[in-house]
């Protein structure tokens, strides 16, 4: 691409699109700094355009991850008051950064008896909405402007890469994968979408349970996740995801977060075994994970069996039904079915 003749109006405009980097002859990484800047900006800017956000509006949402950071950056730039509700996972540098950006932060200390921290956070959001009648809640899990924001990424990939055979990415709200894949399919209808989830996440039919790998997976089923977009689903545990995160850094000098590692593991496998160009979304940079994934002592504590100098696993275990007590790295043909159909099909077989 040629150099633009315009100076960016702000950091969101300058840095919301990924850098497209070749990682193998048929593998391209789409490396974001903070991917969530893109949907946060689109949701807020559309709400401003539709008059749902005015000068006195307080933006309220719940988050413990990079969506809060993206939203805080956008609200700081647009001069909007932001109130975020989070849990103890946010504390430390991220909390400091959110407050620097002017966000007010409420940390929920006790999980709810029913529904855990997520339910407790939502209860506080409801209280805040009552306290600030002029409010806007972006709700990335249900707001259609979350997936729609990724039209910009689809445009970039169509322009720079052209025909894409496989699009790979971690799934949390479903926004990035569904939005990018749907728009790209308008020109490349045979594109195959491969979702990366983790065990004990409800997204693709498993039961909710404790998960070490954060940023992908979900305890709830977001309406922005359209299962019929996906051709294939992979479940990746923390240990292979962390190993792949470090390998991405060692081999390609790409310093990314653990959901990027999980996606890279899957994308590398597809690039090796299948025909055509594979593009993988790599959602955030590694700085937030210096004290965790990039700290060998921490890693040894949570994944005692992990050997960083071992070769990465090259292939998943293929399964024909959604694994219920799965572990490691497993994959299943999804064939653009709804979750209901997948579960009904496998009940019919058993």
């Amino acid at each position, binding site marked *: 691409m040629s150099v633009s003749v315009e100076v960016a109006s702000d950091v969101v405009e300058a840095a919301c699109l990924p850098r497209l980097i070749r990682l193998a002859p048929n593998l391209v990484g789409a490396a974001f700094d903070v991917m969530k800047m893109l949907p946060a900006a689109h949701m807020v800017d559309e709400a401003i355009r539709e008059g749902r956000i005015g000068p006195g509006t307080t933006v309220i949402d719940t988050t413990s991850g990079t969506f809060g950071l993206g939203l805080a950056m956008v609200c700081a730039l647009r001069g909007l008051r932001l109130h975020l509700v989070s849990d103890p996972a946010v504390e430390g540098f991220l909390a400091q950064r959110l407050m620097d950006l002017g966000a007010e932060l409420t940390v929920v200390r006790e999980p709810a008896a029913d529904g855990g921290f997520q339910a407790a956070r939502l209860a506080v959001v409801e209280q805040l909405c009552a306290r600030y009648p002029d409010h806007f809640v972006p709700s990335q899990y249900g707001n259609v402007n979350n997936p729609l924001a990724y039209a910009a990424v689809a*445009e970039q990939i169509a*322009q720079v890469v052209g025909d894409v055979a496989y699009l790979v990415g971690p799934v949390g709200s479903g926004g990035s994968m569904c939005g990018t894949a749907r*728009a790209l399919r*308008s020109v490349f209808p045979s594109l195959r979408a491969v979702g990366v989830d983790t065990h004990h996440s409800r997204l693709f039919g498993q039961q909710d349970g404790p998960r070490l790998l954060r940023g992908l997976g979900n305890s709830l089923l977001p309406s922005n996740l359209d299962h019929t977009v996906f051709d294939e689903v992979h479940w990746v545990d923390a240990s292979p995801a962390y190993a792949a995160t470090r390998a991405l850094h060692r081999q390609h000098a790409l310093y990314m977060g653990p959901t990027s590692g999980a996606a890279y593991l899957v994308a590398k496998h597809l690039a090796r075994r299948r025909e055509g160009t594979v593009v993988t979304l790599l959602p955030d940079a590694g700085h937030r994970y210096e004290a965790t994934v990039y700290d060998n002592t921490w890693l040894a504590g949570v994944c005692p069996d992990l050997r960083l100098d071992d070769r990465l696993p090259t292939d998943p275990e293929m399964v024909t039904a959604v694994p219920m007590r799965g572990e490691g790295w497993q994959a299943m043909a999804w064939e653009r079915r709804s979750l209901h159909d997948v579960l009904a099909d496998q009940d019919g077989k058993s």
Partner: protein
Amino acid sequence: MPFPLFASTACFTPVQDADVEGGPLLWKAVRSAEETLLRIGAPDWGGTVEVHSTIPRGRGLGSSTADVVATARAVAHAFGRRLSPQEIGEIAVAAEAASDSLMFDLPVLFAQREALTLEAFPHSLPPFTLIGADFGGSDVDTLAAPQIRYDARERADFRALRGALRRALHLGDSSLLARVSTASTVINQRYRPIAQVDALLAEHASWGAMGIQVAHSGTVAGVICPLGDMDAAKRAAARLESLGAMEIWRFDVGVC
């Protein structure tokens, strides 16, 4: 897309302190002459406009824009002036409210009711052979047709299409250009359907054609074939005929 088989030519005879005249059938050309006279600083001039055109009307071939552009150039020429494509675009939209982009030599993304060049591409079209057809039916009045309101998903799709279009033009990739055109045709079929085009969309790949193209408002459509691929061209023409095309044209684009 340039269509070399048809053309409009205009002749303007200036008269000082007179109105512009051309007859009721040429009211768009008359408006174009008036608008051009204002722009080149000759507001007290008028004259007569004559237009000779071989372009079939009301089919989506841009016949009225061709008249308007030819007139604007003739008027400017009478005063020893030249107009830029952008100026002619503004004159055309002032004259006919919605205009095609045929005043530009290179491909553009053109907002046809605003005369806004959304994007100008620095490359000419890559080579291909087009088999065009007119399926007939009632004439299309571009202005009377309701303006299309694309939904948010379609607007997202257009962004992907635009990225692919830049790539196709930059690399001279006719096949990718044809895929963009096909995707745009699929969206257009939801709003301004041409019944026969569904069959073209479903079957063209089996003839060795690369894609389908339609007029955004009109009764003409085209099959995009690899340059000089006689076999694909023949099969496309045969199918267009069996679908009831009134006329079929074949020409090459992107060649000198």
